[in-house]
């Protein structure tokens, strides 16, 4: 059995995004010594989560502190699922693959990073007004 699951709801403000990416780092302690994740991968997951959370604050809530932002992490044997939910505006489109960004640009790297880090990215607007970005990272059974 591996039931590890974490979640954190914060006010949707840029200053709270740090707490959400911290939750990614709590993974190791919560899952125990049987599940050791490579530090480099954890850093990359934290980066992708951070970009997604910043986007939710900026684009879904338009920069206002208008509602809750929730991160859920489910630790499975073969994959980690990161689910980020807001109750702001729906995204008009969500690109299914990473858009190309020509360096050196000063912004717009967010989606590219999320797609680069995660194995699967899926955006959903639900009827109850919740937007959820589901990001999946595959991990070896022994990873």
């Amino acid at each position, binding site marked *: 059995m591996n039931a590890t699951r974490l979640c954190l709801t914060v006010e949707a403000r*840029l*200053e709270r*995004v*740090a707490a959400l*990416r911290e939750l990614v780092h709590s993974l190791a302690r919560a899952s125990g010594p049987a599940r050791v994740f490579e*530090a*480099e991968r954890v*850093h*990359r997951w*934290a*980066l992708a989560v*951070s*970009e997604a959370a*910043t986007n939710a*604050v*900026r684009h879904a809530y338009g920069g206002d502190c208008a509602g809750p932002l929730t991160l859920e992490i489910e630790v499975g044997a073969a994959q980690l699922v990161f689910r980020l939910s807001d109750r702001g505006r729906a995204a008009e489109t969500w690109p299914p693959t990473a858009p190309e*960004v020509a*360096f*050196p*640009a*000063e*912004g717009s*790297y*967010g989606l*590219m*990073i999320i797609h*680069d*880090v995660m194995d699967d990215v899926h955006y959903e607007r639900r009827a109850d007004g919740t937007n959820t970005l589901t990001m999946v990272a595959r991990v070896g059974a022994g990873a």
Partner: protein
Amino acid sequence: MRIQTVKPSDGPAVLQLEGDLDAASSPQLKAGLLALLDAADRGVVVDLAGVPFIDSSGLGALVAGLKSARQREIGFALAGIQVAAQAIFTITMADHVFEIFPTAEAASAFLAGARKA
């Protein structure tokens, strides 16, 4: 984010950062960096040894600094990037665009040498 500037009379200015560099803190870095570049004719080193996390907004602020330095034709280098903060540079390939050194000392020596040569 705490920002401290060290300006030796005979070498590049060094901007020492401490704390996460993300969307909450990068506007502060960008403003500090652009103000420093206005007055730093011997070049600028951004010392990231105290920065455990950098996201795309942080990278954006550093890119703004790089562009401004190029316009002014002064040196610009990054130093002391932590392992935990490296992902953003590899993913965006920014590590091919910036001059990057292990320590602020090495970066300063490089910029000083480049001016003389």
